[in-house]
């Protein structure tokens, strides 16, 4: 039966035969035609949709690539399931997680009236840890950059990066990669003490790095958290040709074959040896000239045994720095102390000449450590090989303390609970504590690696130590961190380079007695070169400075490198480096007494580097002035000029001058506020926020025209002194405010 009103059966249409065309690789697709259409085509896309072009190709996370196993041409790896399958990256520009924006310039803040510093100091640095993937570098480890506004470096808010009382070191100085190692040495009490004591001596060697370390450590102490620069240390270091030969200089090294970690380890070796030598040339009173060397060196013998005749020969092999060697093919990862023992003993096989057998044979070598134990044990971690990275990936692998016993030509090393047991039964065990370390931070491919220091600053706290106090020293960024944070590593981005242990008995032995032993002879001497033309009279013995003695000071500079700017594609301009200035002349005048205003220092500094700009108008220095062959002025080395000022500083003298902040920065000295009287600050109208020039002040208050030609530091220092005296007069009469407002 059929229903009467059945729907007609639907049949497929009889298709029209297809055009007999062949669509080859070069033929147009329009060879197959379109039917006529009366409505919008299906292929039409809505026009409101917005698509973005120009996105960089997505990056595959490095940990996935690390786990990838190749099979044919496909790399397989387990899916970490960080996002959904094929989830789009929403951010147009992939920002590095945890990147912290540079703070506003001080001048910007001042303009915007933004004095609100109440932001929780932790926020910018720690808020991001939540979202970090295992290979992401936390914010505080990122390389920090100084920004320069048109007001120069003073406008940069260093405080944003460091709210501790431990000063950081600035970057943008040649070879400042060494900053973390310098900090590590500073917080190793033994080395600190030796350096400062040495510096008080009359060591005049220009290339003495121990002196420079002393100056630097003193500056870091005095700055008490303010940013410092290792300018003079690095300048001296950079002038040592031996260091250049060892490849310790940043400049001129192609980026590709420069392993920063390798450089800092070589530097470590070089420095230890260099300061030991420096110490010998001018030892501290009452100490052996080998004192420092003995404190640093691990002396050992290499025992070479012939495999044929069994003859043993011994050769001394001393070293300041031990390199860690990681056992290969170890079934289980050993502890740090087993690695240490392995590294020190270093059994090995070599082919060599046997005197007895008179032929080349395979020899077994074994290192034997004597019982002399250094006070400071430096290790280079040399964590390059995959197996070494496996060790450092272990959590809490690095022990806080290790104990070493050398008995019967055997080197024994203990840690942890075992050490505590050994301590009880063996009085000969020497216990070392970890002072700190230098670690290399490798970001993603786009950023060059850099170094940071992780240091327990508690060791240099005088007196009894209460627990540990770890700090991160990332150039001028300094932050307290947990011990957990400091002593754990992540092979993807953080690996140790240098480890520093110190004998427990030396901890917290902070010796500040050097301040009482200053050799001040330099102040009273007229060096042969210093045949003064500027009525310069050296201090007589009855003019010996005492705390509070006032001196007027002014310094002049020349430029060694022009300012360098960056102009981006969008036209924004940024100063990358302000012009690099160098001290060219410094004048110090007596501030009181009969000879008030008479200079006793007027040093022109012998400058070896080429000068790109003498800035003659401002400095009064003319080409040739700093060249001993041409100069008509007495030239001294930077070290001599510096040391005089340093002695005055440590005698507690007070410096009067105009705009001294810049002068001190370039001299590379930190003078505590109590010891500075700056006429810029005295004659500062708070309401107008304007700094007044020396020339204007001289004209207005002293009715005197100065700086009519090129500047002259004696004139300027003298003017500042007289302005100060004028100020004292006004103050005395109680009319200073009134005078200033006029």
């Amino acid at each position, binding site marked *: 039966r059929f229903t009467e009103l059945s729907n007609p059966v639907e049949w497929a249409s009889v298709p029209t035969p297809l055009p007999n065309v062949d669509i080859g690789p070069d033929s147009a697709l329009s060879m197959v035609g379109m039917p006529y259409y009366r409505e919008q085509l299906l292929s039409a896309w809505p026009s409101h949709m917005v698509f973005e072009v120009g996105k960089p190709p997505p990056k595959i996370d490095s940990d996935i690539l690390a786990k990838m196993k190749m099979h044919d041409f496909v790399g397989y790896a387990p899916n970490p399931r960080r996002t959904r399958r094929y989830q*789009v990256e929403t951010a147009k520009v992939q920002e590095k997680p945890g990147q912290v924006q540079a703070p506003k310039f001080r001048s910007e803040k001042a303009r915007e009236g933004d004095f609100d510093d109440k932001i929780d100091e932790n926020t910018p640095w720690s808020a991001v840890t939540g979202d970090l993937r295992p290979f992401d570098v936390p914010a505080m480890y990122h390389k920090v950059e100084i920004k320069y506004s048109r007001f120069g470096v003073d406008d940069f808010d260093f405080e944003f990066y460091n709210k501790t009382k431990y000063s950081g070191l600035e970057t943008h100085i040649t070879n400042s990669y060494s900053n973390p190692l310098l900090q590590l040495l500073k917080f190793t009490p033994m080395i600190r003490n030796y350096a400062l004591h040495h510096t008080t001596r009359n060591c005049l060697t220009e290339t003495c790095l121990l002196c420079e370390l002393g100056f630097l450590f003193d500056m870091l102490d005095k700055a008490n958290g303010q940013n410092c620069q290792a300018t003079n240390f690095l300048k001296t270091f950079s002038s040592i040709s031996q260091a250049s030969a060892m490849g310790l200089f940043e400049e001129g090294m192609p980026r590709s074959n420069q392993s920063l970690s390798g450089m800092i380890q070589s530097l470590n070796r070089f420095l230890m040896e260099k300061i030991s030598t420096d110490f010998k040339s001018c030892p501290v009173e009452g100490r052996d000239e080998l004192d420092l060397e003995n404190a640093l060196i691990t002396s050992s013998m290499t025992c070479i045994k012939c495999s044929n005749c069994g003859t043993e020969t011994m050769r001394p092999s001393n070293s300041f720095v031990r390199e860690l060697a990681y056992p290969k093919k170890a079934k289980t990862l050993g502890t740090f102390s087993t690695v240490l023992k392995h590294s020190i003993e270093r059994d090995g096989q070599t082919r060599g000449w046997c005197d007895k057998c008179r032929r080349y044979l395979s020899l077994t070598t074994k290192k034997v450590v004597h019982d002399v134990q250094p006070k400071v044990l430096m290790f280079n971690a040399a964590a390059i090989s995959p197996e070494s990275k496996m060790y450092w990936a272990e959590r809490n692998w690095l022990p806080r303390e290790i104990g070493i016993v050398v008995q019967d030509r055997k080197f024994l090393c203990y840690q942890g609970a075992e050490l505590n047991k050994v301590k009880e039964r063996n009085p000969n065990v020497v216990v070392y504590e970890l002072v700190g370390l230098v670690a290399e931070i490798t970001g993603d491919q786009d950023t060059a690696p850099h170094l940071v220091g992780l240091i327990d600053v508690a060791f240099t706290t005088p007196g009894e130590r209460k627990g540990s106090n770890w700090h991160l020293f990332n150039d001028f960024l300094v932050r307290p961190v947990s011990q957990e944070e400091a002593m754990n590593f992540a092979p993807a981005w953080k690996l140790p380079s240098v480890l520093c242990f110190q004998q427990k008995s030396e901890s917290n032995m902070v010796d500040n007695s050097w301040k009482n032993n200053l050799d001040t002879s330099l102040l009273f001497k007229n060096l042969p070169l210093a045949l003064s033309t500027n009525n310069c009279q050296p201090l007589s013995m009855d003019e010996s400075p005492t705390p509070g003695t006032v001196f007027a000071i002014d310094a002049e500079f020349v430029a060694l490198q022009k300012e360098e700017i960056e102009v981006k594609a969008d036209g924004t301009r940024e100063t990358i480096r302000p012009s690099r200035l160098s001290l060219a002349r410094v004048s110090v005048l007596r501030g009181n007494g009969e000879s008030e205003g008479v200079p006793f220092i007027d040093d022109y500094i012998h400058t070896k580097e080429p000068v790109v700009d003498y800035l003659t108008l401002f400095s009064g220095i003319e080409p040739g002035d700093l060249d001993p062959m041409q100069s008509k002025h007495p030239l001294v080395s930077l070290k001599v000029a510096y040391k005089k000022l340093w002695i005055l500083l440590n005698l507690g003298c007070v410096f009067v001058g105009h705009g001294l902040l810049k002068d001190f920065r370039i001299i590379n000295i930190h003078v505590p506020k109590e010891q500075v009287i700056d006429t810029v600050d005295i004659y500062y109208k708070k309401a107008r926020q304007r700094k007044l020039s020396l020339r204007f002040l001289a004209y207005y208050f002293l009715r005197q025209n100065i700086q009519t030609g090129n500047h002259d530091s004696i004139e300027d220092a003298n003017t500042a002194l007289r302005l100060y005296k004028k100020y004292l007069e006004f103050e005395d009469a109680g009319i200073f405010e009134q005078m200033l407002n006029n």
Partner: protein
Amino acid sequence: YYAQQSYSQPLQYHLYAPLGPHKQNLLSYQRTVHDLFLKDSIREDLQKKAEATLQILPNSTLPNVDSYHSLVPLDLHVAKPQGKNAQPQPQSTFGHTSWVYKATSNKDGLAYILRRLEGFRLSNEKAIRVVEHWKRVLNANVVTVHDAFTTRVFGDNSIVFVFDYFPLSQTLQDIHFGPNSRYQNRHHGAHQNQTQNANTEHMLWSYIVQIASALKTIHAAGLAARTIQPNKILLTNKNRIRINCCSIFDVLHFENGRPLLELQQDDYIAFGKLILSIACNNPHAMHNAQKSMDFIGRTFTPELKNFLLYVFNGPASGGPRTMDELLSMISFQLIQNFDSSLHQNDVLESQFSKELENGRLVRLLCKFGFINERPEFAHDHKWSETGDRYLIMLLRDYIFHQVDEAGNPVLDLVHVLSCLNKLDAGTDERIMLVSRDEQNCLIVSFRELKRAIEASYSELSKRG
């Protein structure tokens, strides 16, 4: 222009792709679907031209002429179709009733224009041989003549000239002086603003340079154009003109042949008249030549006036006008037009390459379609979803199945196109594919994926 009977709806170009609203204020890295594909205006223009070329007259009674068939009469006076059944009126030019047809050659399948002059009796064979010379005149600003022959298929004695066909072209007459001209209501230059005058002058120079180029080729071939008149010059593209109907006068007036030099000098004057009338926006500008020249002097640069003075009066030294002189007079404009035509080339090439790219992407997407999810090979080990085909499937997901954080689909055409392009080129970029169970990542380069697709495809075609 005829609508086709059996498919009475003309193409709805606006339905092709939505016209908008186009988003304004997009950032430089943002695109809408319109920016990713060919511009609608270009596509529409080309499609209309193609459509016009393919237009046929249903139930036509027009005969085949020589090797040409499918004749469609065109009325060049009326650019727009005037209703379905309007009969085109023959023109009367060249002293004969004249018809214009579009026709298809059965030699090469291409469309040509047949221009038929009714009632022409050829008495001297040499007359029609003149066209041979013209055939060799190849200039981008001259409509090439391909043939000339006499015929009686229309039931009379006709001569037919065969020219290149330029669909949707218009004459300068239509454009500047026709009833629908957009220049129609423009007032004389005095009332126009500076910019308008500059634009007009720009156009004039473009015309001058192109006509000069055409004349140079024609004169160098020992011929004279004789048709430099607004109704004999076609505008085939924006600002692109071509001298039409060349050779016809040479055939028609073969007997009373005037000296070549005279005819060529006449070309210069006709050239001047044409430019003058367009500049003055008045077809009769020559009637008051002095006034018109004054106007030119007031409105345009002195160079234009100098050009006109030269073509009207000849060189100051007396003697005939020469192409050399003319060209060096306008060389400055010439080089500018040269530059713009090279620019135009660059634009066309980049558009063209984009379309070719799309063509390749279609082929690629079809390969995807051929390979993926073939049910009949499910049992076949080699074709199962492992190895190459598994990768191809995951790649398809990678390209099309992007999601956002909430798991909602993301329809990102740019992502699709850029993936396909990279795949097509086989770049070394590595991407991370994720298995459907989300357990594994597969890292593979586009180069390898391309190879995998090619292998699968050729496997498939071997079976086919």
